[in-house]
């Protein structure tokens, strides 16, 4: 009989708060710090891989995930909840988009789909909110921000197709970085951090972030920020970095296919991370 009734556990307190969501945020704020920085030509996602035992094998632990060839994701909070969301995100990007339009969803559309999933967990019966915050980084085809500002600046080039403002739309292309919270709220960022040392990391990022950053600089700043907050040793095995950059055609698996472009999102290998660390 009891299973006939299924009320949402997330109910308003008299003061208007949803305490279950606040508890979920507490779980996030105990999680390992993750950060993201947007550059002009890409994005970097970075986090620490914390192992509680010297016997653990960090090489087979992965916290940054590829969702679509151009979109990647990292989290702070509960690992199992994150894996569920990665599965949902990968699935919905196909069922809700690729199988319909034969192209992958733009970052904002994917973020909205994941955010919807997280919001529904705050209003449905028999479930609890997800105990994670996400950083979603992606690259969208569209008008690049620098081109857009040039057009708006009145320097209209003859013969160049200007974006139609008919729908006031997001013809906006280039790098996109979003944070998604357990409530289902999502925010676009230039650079941000989530997790245990988010506040410290964000203060650090505010100091180091500049407009017109290149991807290489962004990776550098990401490592510096991580260094501020990291508890253990910093090496290729103890941190994880994902980048959204130029199409990585070497990951395509084939060569000479006309029109084929490689994924923009890829994870850096421990060796690549070590290389960055030596130059720190």
């Amino acid at each position, binding site marked *: 009989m009891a299973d006939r009734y299924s009320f949402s556990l997330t109910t308003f307190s008299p003061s208007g708060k949803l305490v279950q969501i606040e508890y979920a945020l507490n779980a996030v704020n105990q999680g390992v710090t993750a950060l993201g920085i947007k550059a002009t030509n890409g994005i970097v996602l970075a986090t620490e891989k914390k192992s509680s035992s010297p016997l653990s094998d960090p090489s087979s632990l992965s916290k940054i995930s590829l969702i679509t060839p151009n979109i990647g994701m990292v989290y702070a909070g509960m690992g199992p909840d994150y894996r569920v969301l990665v599965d949902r995100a990968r699935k919905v990007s196909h069922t809700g988009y690729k199988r319909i339009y*034969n192209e992958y969803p733009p970052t904002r559309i994917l973020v909205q789909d994941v955010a919807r999933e997280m919001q529904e967990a705050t209003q449905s019966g028999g479930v609890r909110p997800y105990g994670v915050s996400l950083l979603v980084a992606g690259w969208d085809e569209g008008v690049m921000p620098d081109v857009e500002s040039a057009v708006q600046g009145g320097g209209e080039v003859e013969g160049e197709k200007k974006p139609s403002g008919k*729908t006031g739309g997001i013809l906006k292309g280039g790098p996109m970085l979003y944070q998604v919270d357990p409530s289902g709220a999502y925010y676009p960022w230039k650079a941000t951090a989530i997790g245990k040392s988010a506040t410290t990391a964000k203060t650090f990022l505010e100091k180091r972030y500049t407009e017109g950053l290149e991807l290489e600089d962004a990776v550098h700043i990401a490592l510096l920020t991580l260094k501020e907050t990291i508890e253990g040793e910093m090496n290729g095995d103890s941190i994880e970095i994902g980048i959204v950059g130029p199409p990585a055609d070497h990951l395509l698996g084939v060569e000479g296919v006309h029109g084929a472009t490689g994924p923009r999102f890829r994870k850096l290998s421990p060796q690549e991370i070590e290389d960055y660390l030596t130059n720190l």
Partner: protein
Amino acid sequence: MSSPFSINGGACVAMVGKDCVAIACDLRLGLQALTVSNNFPKIFQYGDVFLGLTGLATDVSTVSDLFRYKVNMYRLREERNIAPSTFANLVSSSLYERRFGPYFVSPVVAGLDPKSGRPFICGFDSIGCIDFAKDFIVSGTASEQLFGMCESLWEPDLGPDDLFETISQALLSAVDRDALSGWGAHVYIVEKDKVTKRLLKGRQD
């Protein structure tokens, strides 16, 4: 004789030009040999993309309404107009959803790619198999006649005015040899930031 595709009659054609595309259809709606209406357009505009539908009249209306809904929802969700190639894939997947109870239509899609400005045309069978073409796409009860006219009249890199002349003559001549099509035509010429719609009176017999 009573194939659902040839009960009501109708014809549609799309052509590629230099930095432009054209799409045209006839206006007849009939029941077998009897003409019921000479005001039944078969081309529908969704933002910057054009869809031509020939076949069973009821499905022409149903499918055009369905895509109006889908494209409007896309525009609200994504805050941008749908691109012709994206729309073509939407048409394909939507038709294949009805694989074992299809809509009896032969769609044609035409438009310019919003990013590159390149012309895009394609056609489909009733279950969504896409037929990409660099030159022209024909559909409807006059498709055989249209193939002949297009093969002989079409040439690469026609400007908007020449393309209009070519597609109009191809359509009008083709439907004259088809008892189930004709009775006037709609012709759309799509350029970078201009769309011209012309109504051709055509033979009324």
